């Protein structure tokens, strides 16, 4: 009997721990049926478009800026380049699904931890097809949950205008990266804010009309 009691207590404690650890992202949302197996991000998907943004990066209190350029170069590949305002290339990456290639990076920025951070951010930003494993909704949003290795992406789509307005990248228990999109027409993101939760890094991108 005592054994049973102990076992029961352990289970309840574990349950409590798990419950409190569960990611807060879709707390208070209702779980619904999965209506589409794949969610397609509308942004960065047009091969004819030059996506050019003025970037403001704030990292641990330091601010710097530049120009962030994205081009979809074929069905599966994106080029992501960052230059100074004068046009000097600081880094040049190629992203294709889970493949990531550094074409060029200046010595001053060539740090593994920085490259890995940017790699994750840009892969999230440029990912087009999200496999949906679960679906949620509240009054304003439909939320698609998509597995990403051992992590997850929660995609928030506005019910009213169907705009993809937010991506939250999480582990099982914690939100790690928040990407917010502002879009006039739902195919071009006019403003993007990438906010990290565990490091003090914020990237703001404002579309330049070229």
């Amino acid at each position: 009997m005592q054994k049973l009691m102990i076992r029961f207590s352990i289970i309840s404690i574990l349950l409590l721990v798990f419950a409190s650890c569960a990611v807060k992202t879709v707390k208070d949302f209702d779980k619904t049926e999965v209506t589409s197996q794949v969610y397609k991000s509308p942004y960065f998907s047009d091969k004819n478009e030059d996506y050019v943004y003025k970037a403001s990066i704030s990292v641990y209190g330091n601010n710097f800026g530049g120009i962030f350029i994205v081009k979809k170069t074929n069905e599966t590949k994106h080029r992501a380049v960052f230059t100074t305002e004068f046009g000097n290339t600081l880094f040049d990456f190629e992203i294709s699904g889970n493949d990531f290639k550094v074409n060029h990076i200046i010595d001053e920025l060539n740090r593994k931890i920085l490259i890995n951070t940017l790699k994750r951010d840009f892969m999230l930003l440029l990912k087009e097809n999200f496999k949906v494993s679960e679906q949620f909704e509240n009054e304003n949003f439909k939320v698609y949950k998509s597995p990403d290795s051992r992590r997850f992406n929660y995609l928030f789509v506005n019910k009213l205008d169907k705009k993809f307005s937010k991506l939250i990248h999480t582990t099982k228990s914690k939100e790690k990266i928040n990407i917010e999109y502002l879009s006039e027409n739902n195919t071009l993101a006019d403003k993007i804010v990438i906010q990290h939760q565990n490091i003090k890094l914020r990237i703001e991108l404002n579309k330049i009309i070229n």
Partner: protein
Amino acid sequence: MLLFSFGVFSQEQKMSESEISAFKNSVNATAKSTKTLTTDFTQLKHMDFLSKDIETSGKMNFKTPNMLQWQYVKPYQYSIIFKNNKIFINDAGKKNNIDKGNSKMFDKLNKLIVGSVNGNMFDENEFTISYFKTKDFNITKLLPKDAALKKYVKQMELYFDKTGNTVSQVKMIEPSNDYTKIIFKNKVINAKIDDSVFNN
């Protein structure tokens, strides 16, 4: 390919030794008598994979010996001031200062930028320089010698107006062959520029 895209400035001819020294003398004389320079500029960033060059534009102010302000107005507000070995940035209201005193790279880039504005770039220790002429321009092509600078800049090309001996176009070619071209317009020499222009 590169030569091809230069069709507009075709018929580039190498200058003779005597033309080179005459040209250098007149540029140096102009640079010496230039106390201030203010000009509009248009910047074109060319990258092979883009369908269109990225165009930005603004105003530039220069005052001897070494105060320089680049102010981008379109399509965004951004200004960068080089003054007393420091760089002051105003990025749409967000201000940032960089002390470049300990950065050799910044110093070199600064010299490059100031030099391309006032034409004072005939430093044979820093560059391998070749000289060309067309109907409208005298052209200098500079290959950096410094290994660190070479990583950023493969070649600088300065186009000098034959009439005024001042720089009217700068082309900075990167190691990847992508380039930035800056075209100066409405140049005014020796107009009064208040020092406060160089405060952010």
